[in-house]
């Protein structure tokens, strides 16, 4: 038996509410102290201070440090990926999601051949890293379906990640063997009570099973682990931001061979008609990206096309390392746009070459390929 604890246990002992309250009332001296420490020394209280209204008044200073750390670690580059929605079939009832079970929308699950067509279309546009997404449907998009899709798409692009329902350790091993390099799991919200409000039915009700998903993936030898909270679900949003940062730090320590990335998605309009409980302003999101960088100097920070073009471009120098472009959130959207309902409305609709040009104008080179299947070592699974 491992002597180490799960993140669920660690989070239970983490005073998230106190940290958020400290953040709300942090003084200028707290910010100064957090800024003065080196990246490796900063603790969750420093992160809370950097996320505070007091630090917002000094955002320029925080942003400069964030840019310095990001440049040192990642250089003047941004990694590009594309989401591929394989299915919008879903058995869960998340009231904020455009795929929720009871919504009357056009549903579709791609066949493996259709998925390959989508991947080829994306490869022709330059993409070499695809993120495969599905709703949560055990039968239609189970582990066998995913493994088949991964094997087929692995012949088209060198790097594949998934953002789907959570699996057991053995199932993650199977997916890794099929060519899955990365697993992204949004906890949606880290607050247990809020989580229970939104997830009233289906397998997703099980908070602990979901929060321990990244650990199971890590134990299965998955090399890239992504976490995030859907900002807007829980008020105050800073509690979710603090828990996310704690989760990323935990995974970084425990799975020292894996790369950890953090996403900071804000709720977008969708067929659900959901109204967020909390609103994260642009300035606050920029501050969150910088605070994450100062707390997690080596973590990838992912910003999808949920965000507006100009805002996204401006955030890249501040700490964003991974971005998508020309995204469709409906299954089949790259070859037959609009054939099914999307998960949410994409905000930045620019095609990938246009995004690449905009980033080049800001002095950033787009890295399309940063992985080679020759490195895929399934024997690594532990």
């Amino acid at each position, binding site marked *: 038996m491992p002597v180490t604890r799960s993140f669920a246990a660690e989070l239970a002992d983490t005073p998230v509410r106190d940290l958020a309250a400290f953040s709300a009332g942090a003084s200028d001296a707290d910010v100064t102290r957090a800024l003065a420490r080196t990246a490796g020394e900063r603790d969750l209280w420093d992160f809370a201070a950097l996320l505070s209204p007091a630090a917002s008044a000094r955002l320029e200073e925080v942003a400069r440090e964030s840019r310095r750390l990001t440049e040192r670690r990642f250089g003047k*580059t941004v990694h590009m990926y594309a989401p591929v929605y394989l299915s919008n079939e879903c058995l869960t009832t998340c009231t904020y999601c455009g795929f929720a079970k009871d919504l009357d929308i056009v549903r579709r699950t791609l066949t493996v051949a259709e998925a390959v067509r989508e991947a080829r279309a994306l490869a022709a546009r330059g993409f070499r890293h695809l993120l495969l997404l599905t709703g949560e449907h055990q039968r239609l998009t189970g582990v066998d379906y995913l493994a088949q899709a991964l094997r087929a798409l692995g012949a088209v692009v060198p790097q594949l990640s998934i953002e789907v329902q959570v699996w057991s350790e053995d199932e993650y091993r199977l997916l890794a063997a099929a060519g899955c390099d990365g697993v992204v799991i949004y906890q949606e919200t880290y607050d247990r009570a809020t989580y229970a409000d939104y997830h009233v039915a289906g397998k997703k009700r099980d908070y602990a099973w979901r929060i321990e998903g990244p650990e199971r993936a890590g134990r299965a030898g998955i090399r890239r682990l992504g976490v995030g909270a859907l900002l807007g679900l829980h008020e105050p949003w800073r509690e979710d931001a603090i828990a996310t940062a704690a989760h990323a730090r935990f995974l970084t320590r425990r799975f020292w061979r894996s790369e950890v990335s953090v996403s900071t998605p804000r709720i977008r309009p969708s067929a659900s008609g959901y109204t967020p409980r909390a609103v994260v302003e642009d300035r606050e999101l920029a501050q969150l990206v910088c605070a994450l960088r100062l707390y997690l100097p080596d973590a990838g920070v992912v910003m999808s096309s949920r965000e507006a073009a100009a805002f996204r471009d401006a955030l890249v120098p501040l700490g964003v390392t991974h971005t998508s472009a020309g995204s469709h959130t409906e299954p089949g959207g790259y070859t037959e746009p609009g054939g099914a309902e999307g998960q949410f409305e994409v905000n930045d609709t620019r095609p990938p070459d246009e995004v690449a040009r905009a980033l080049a104008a800001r002095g950033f080179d787009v890295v399309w390929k940063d992985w080679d299947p020759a490195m*895929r070592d399934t024997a690594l699974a532990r």
Partner: protein
Amino acid sequence: MSAREHDPLVIAGRSFGSRLIVGTGKFSSGEAMRDALVASGTQMVTVALRRVDLDATGGPDILSFIDLDRYLLLPNTSGAMTAEEAVRLARLARAMELPTWIKLEVTPDPRYLLPDPIETLKAAEILVAEGFTVLPYINADPVLAKRLEEAGCATVMPLGAWIGSNLGVRTRDAVRIIVEQAEIPVVVDAGIGAPSHAAEAMELGVDCVLVNTAIAVARDPARMARAFRSAVEAGREAYLAGLAPARDAADASSPLTGFLDPMSPLSG
């Protein structure tokens, strides 16, 4: 011209006029990288195999910015976490008809990118047996350096500090021992953040330095590359000229052994 003035770096029987190897990651554009390579005067350029995409569609591949007539391409295995992965990447280079000089990097930890000594030695043994010219990235461990030399590596490349840190030659004392014991060229790789660090490494007697981040993220990468070129040359010259030893105090004005002098009133 004395032997010392004609001072090429010789690795695996091949001569290089420059003692600076330049890495190609982290640049803001292919053009910025190309200009920096020219300004650096380098003759050897390292590229991550995982980034090479001969069928690139999103834009020109990184290799299209590197003049292969001008530089020896040194493909590297960065990203590999095990010996097996590194070996597979090296074979990929051969399959792509890239040079079979391999900068061997086995770094299981994606944050500090510190090299795994056990896996590195394993991979080096396999690659040498397969006919590759192997330049391994290692921690500044003098015993490991000798083991890799015995395994048939063409150089050893101890780190000055962790990759991308720009902290300088923090491993100075261990690097000095590696230089003292080595029968193959020693390249300080990683940690060199300023031209003064490069000069310091060269003054210690290392044969060559590898620089990437410090050039790539400088405001003016080409100008920084030129600065590194000068610093490497200055450091090498200083090493060959023989540095005056540093002293922590002035010499005592009255010799302690003056009484042994024949002219001393105490003698005879």
